[in-house]
């Protein structure tokens, strides 16, 4: 969930009134935001780097507000204020206008076919006669960063470049070139670098290094030039220094390039709807032309308004309220969805503004009506759904066995389903290929290399972590292990295992054997060869030679029991003899 940090006093000024922290928290809660933290730059610095470093930092109060991940229109102060003011019916939602410049005067962005391999899409727009202040400028930069981190998927889907239009001359060309052929002075640097040099330069940059992989291994890098060959940006990495915007910038050229055209359009719409507020003609955006290699021309930004019709009773029925159509229209209008009743009250017509790309279905409209109505004003009712409960037979058996294993004097452990290869193979004297284990592709540490194929390692590790406890230690666990199985739809399956350990100065095989007999007694499996269970000598890499038996029940092998091999005991950093039992309980369901 993205967090937007805004200066409290600036926020209250824009909202036209002050709130106590509690009042503002309440307002956020009602609207679906969360006032996550009240802090200041000074607090943040002292928390991150120690009190000494914070000296001189601003102690202006900051509100950190959590915004739902699909509400890109609330990612900056401007949007938050607009949303809340409309919600509180203090202002009407502004109408965003696209202004077509006179023929031949508009900005053009020409996409060449070389971009197809690396970043095929682009959109652009112009903010004319904008007035920046320090706060507006910071917010503009901050919103781009928020969009980059969220909808742009860390610049993979979309990257934004904003430029001082008065420093360049169109038309602009979006092309792709070999890194060695690209040379320009990047943002905040004093000299020119080739693209290859830039990659090296940014490899240690705490911020930019995260984006290098997006183009690094491509033969051609995306690049935008003006008509004089001035570099505007090398998306998705960095803009040029030449076109850097400042507080004095009056005309801003915005380009968004990417691999997902839908998202690029949304990002551009959000940027221009938020910041056109500061243009000479507020909420007006100058369109630009984007010309694709196939000659097709797109006019950007879209700023599309979509109309939906929803029946009032549909909204009422989905929420569980009974409001009049006109009330529902009012509720929706408060959520920036301008609505009115049509067709003798049978329909509500809703206009979805370009800021609300999250509204893709009538259910999204229903939610907004419910938020404006107030979730906590909805009457709670018990559904009449009549059903008979059933336990999953496997879980029912597990629950019953757990209780009786505890009654037999064994203590329940709860160990991880993920572990290292070593735990299930080397430490048990097995080869990993013999385990049929499921392997994880992207483990952050060795602890998450595989899903366990046995409960034994987890129990042994539990004992190792509790060596100070009085002996004997008697542990059990009934839980799932995972193995590959080509016969299932995903290629792997769980088995429910029961594992028990006895750890003491003597191995206590008879105790573990006695536990097996007890479990079989509980499962009503008699000790005989025909239809019951029996154990017979076998070898197992985890067991001491001659002290291992296979358990046969209902005609199939269900597991093993025995005295653990001294090597196994040592590898799990234990010192005492230990006997163990592990069986699959699924045949008894």
């Amino acid at each position, binding site marked *: *969930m993205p967090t937007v940090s805004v200066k409290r006093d600036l926020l209250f000024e824009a909202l036209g009134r002050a709130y106590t922290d509690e009042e503002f928290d309440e307002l956020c*809660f009602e609207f*679906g935001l969360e006032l996550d933290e009240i802090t200041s730059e000074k607090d943040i610095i002292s928390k991150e780097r120690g009190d000494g470093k914070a000296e001189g930092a601003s102690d202006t109060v900051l509100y950190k507000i959590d915004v*739902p*991940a*699909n509400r890109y229109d609330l990612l900056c102060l401007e949007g938050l204020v607009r949303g809340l003011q409309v919600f509180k019916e203090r202002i009407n939602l502004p109408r965003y206008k696209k202004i077509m410049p006179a023929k031949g005067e508009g900005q053009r962005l020409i996409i060449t076919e070389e971009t197809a391999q690396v970043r095929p899409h682009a959109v652009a727009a112009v903010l004319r006669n904008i007035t920046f202040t320090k706060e507006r400028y910071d917010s503009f930069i901050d919103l781009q960063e928020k969009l980059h981190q969220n909808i742009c998927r860390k610049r993979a889907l979309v990257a934004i470049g904003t430029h001082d239009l008065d420093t360049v001359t169109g038309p602009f060309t979006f092309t792709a070139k070999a890194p060695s052929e690209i040379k320009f002075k990047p943002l905040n640097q004093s000299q020119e670098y080739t693209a290859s040099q830039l990659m090296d330069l940014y490899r240690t940059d705490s911020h930019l290094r995260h984006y290098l992989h997006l183009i690094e291994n491509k033969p051609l890098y995306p690049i935008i030039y003006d008509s004089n060959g001035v570099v505007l940006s090398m998306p998705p990495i960095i803009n040029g220094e030449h076109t850097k915007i400042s507080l004095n910038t009056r005309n801003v050229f915005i380009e968004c390039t990417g691999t*997902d055209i*839908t998202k690029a359009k949304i990002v551009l719409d959000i940027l221009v709807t938020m910041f056109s507020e500061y243009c000479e003609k507020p909420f007006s955006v100058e369109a630009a032309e984007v010309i694709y290699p196939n000659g097709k021309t797109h006019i950007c930004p879209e700023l599309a308004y979509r109309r939906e019709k929803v029946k009032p009773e549909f909204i009422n*029925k*989905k*929420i*569980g309220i009974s409001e009049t159509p006109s009330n529902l229209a009012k509720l929706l209008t408060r959520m920036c969805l301008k609505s009115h009743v049509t067709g003798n009250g049978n329909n509500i017509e809703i206009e979805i503004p370009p800021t609300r790309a999250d509204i*893709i*279905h009538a*259910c999204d409209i229903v*939610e907004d009506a*419910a*938020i404006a109505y107030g*979730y*906590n004003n*909805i009457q*709670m*009712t*018990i559904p009449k*759904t009549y*059903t008979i*409960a059933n*336990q*999953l037979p496997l*879980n029912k058996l597990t*629950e019953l066995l*757990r209780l009786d294993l*505890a009654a037999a004097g064994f*203590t*329940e*452990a*709860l*160990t*991880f*389903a*993920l572990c290292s290869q070593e735990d299930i193979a080397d430490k048990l004297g097995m080869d990993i290929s013999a385990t049929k284990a*499921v*392997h*994880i*592709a*992207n*483990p*952050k540490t060795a*602890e*998450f290399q595989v*899903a366990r194929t046995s409960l034994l390692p987890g129990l042994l590790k539990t004992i190792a*972590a509790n060596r100070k406890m009085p002996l004997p230690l008697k542990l059990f666990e009934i839980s799932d292990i*995972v193995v590959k199985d080509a016969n*299932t*739809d*995903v*290629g792997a*399956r*769980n088995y*429910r295992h029961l594992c028990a350990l006895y750890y003491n100065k003597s191995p206590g095989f008879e105790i573990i054997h006695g536990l097996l007999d007890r479990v079989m007694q509980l499962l009503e499996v008699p000790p005989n060869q025909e239809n019951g269970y029996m154990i017979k000598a076998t070898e197992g890499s985890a067991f001491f030679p001659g002290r291992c038996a296979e358990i046969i029940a209902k005609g199939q092998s269900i597991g093993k029991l025995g005295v653990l091999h001294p090597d196994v005991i040592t590898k799990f950093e234990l010192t005492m003899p230990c006997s163990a039992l592990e069986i699959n309980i699924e045949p008894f369901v």
Partner: protein
Amino acid sequence: MSPGVAELLLQRLEQEAPGPGPGGGLCSLEAAAELGLDHQTLVGAVKSLQALGEVIEAEPRAATRWELSAEGEAVARDGSHEVRVFESLPAEGLPQSELMELPGAKVGFSKAMANKWVRLDKEAPGGPRVFRAVAAVQDTVQESLRRVQRGEAASLPERDRADLKKRKLLLEVTLKSYWLRKGSAFRTAVARQETELTPEMIATGSWRQRPFKPYNFAALGLPPACGHLHPLLKVRSQFRQIFLEMGFTEMPTNNFVESSFWNFDALFQPQQHPARDQHDTFFLQDPAEAPKLPTGYMAKVRKVHSQGGYGSQGYKYKWKVEEARKNLLRTHTTAVSARMLYRLARQEKFTPVKYFSIDRVFRNESLDATHLAEFHQIEGVVADHGLTLGHLMGVLKQFFTKLGITQLRFKPAYNPYTEPSMEVFSFHSGLKKWVEVGNSGVFRPELLLPMGLPEGVTVIAWGLSLERPTMIKYGINNIRELVGHRVNLQMVYDSPLCRLDA
């Protein structure tokens, strides 16, 4: 204890006039001296009499006393080592080696040197030689010790006492004694007490005549030799119980490996969603891909993602089957809910259902005191015609009431597969604030309709983690002490019953 001693003591006590209460009585030390007994023996008798009840009153007392050590006694008798060293020196002095052979000379010599009573001539012919340095000395050490012997220790300056104690000439002895009085049940005769009832006593009836030693009810009993259930799983049992009481059927969640299709795509979670990132999800290397996906249904899922339909705009991106095939460790049990709803949709006729599950889910996240790579998700799902947001809130109210949580508040939230969505908050009386206790919502039509569920059917669902309420219930701050092999078994042994609404 010989009964004789106790009886002697009681007879002696009888001579003391007053009964129970303040005043009167006698000191155990004096009594021992009078009766010619070792004090410890007498104390043994006192303790055994105390065990009989109110026969005597014994008030413990402690006194400190200064005593001479064996070495101190010798010094008091013969003079201090340093004086004896001084006095053993003739006018012409003595070779140091010869001096050192005298008893106590080592200490005496260094003390005499420190006092500047003697001097050492290292250059003397025939080896180092010790001479008197003053004409006469006074033995203050011996004097002090004699004063202690006379019982005048208190008159010695504190510093001198400390000094002598350091030289191990003086000992500070703490003397424990009792002040003894007759008790309310005072009697002079005591019988031997039986410790336990025996089968013979029962057979012969001898227990009727015998007095029994009283039990110490203040002590703890012997812990039973038993097994214990894990606290997290005790809480799991209670949640299962609650769902069963509410008529919910358990879903088969025993499949940790899931395809991206069921974990994400079927839930209308777009393929570029951050949760599908390597940073958040454990993908599998082997088996890397799911061999079987439901073809016809998958085509509908592809369409609703990339183009929309069922009244939806869709996400308008290029949906790839390769992404859907990627196997992973399920990130939520909702993947199973999706399978169950698909199964329900394929039934000949729709029937309302209530489902629940509590099982493990996996996240490739950074670990800390409250987050692990695997945890248990609790999930409830209701599918029926005409369910409303009010119904969802009603079910949540019932559910949380059974957990002992009655003050609930709902906050609008975002979830890719539910709309409307709401976070559930409860008022925590300890923290004095509203804390999030669960997440909930109404499944999106883009999820239900491609499965083939009838249009009027609404599915409401909610989820929460099992670990969080357990940590709150059992007051555990570090999740590693609760889940995994680093568990504290003593905590498991000591954990009480789980009664969530108590």
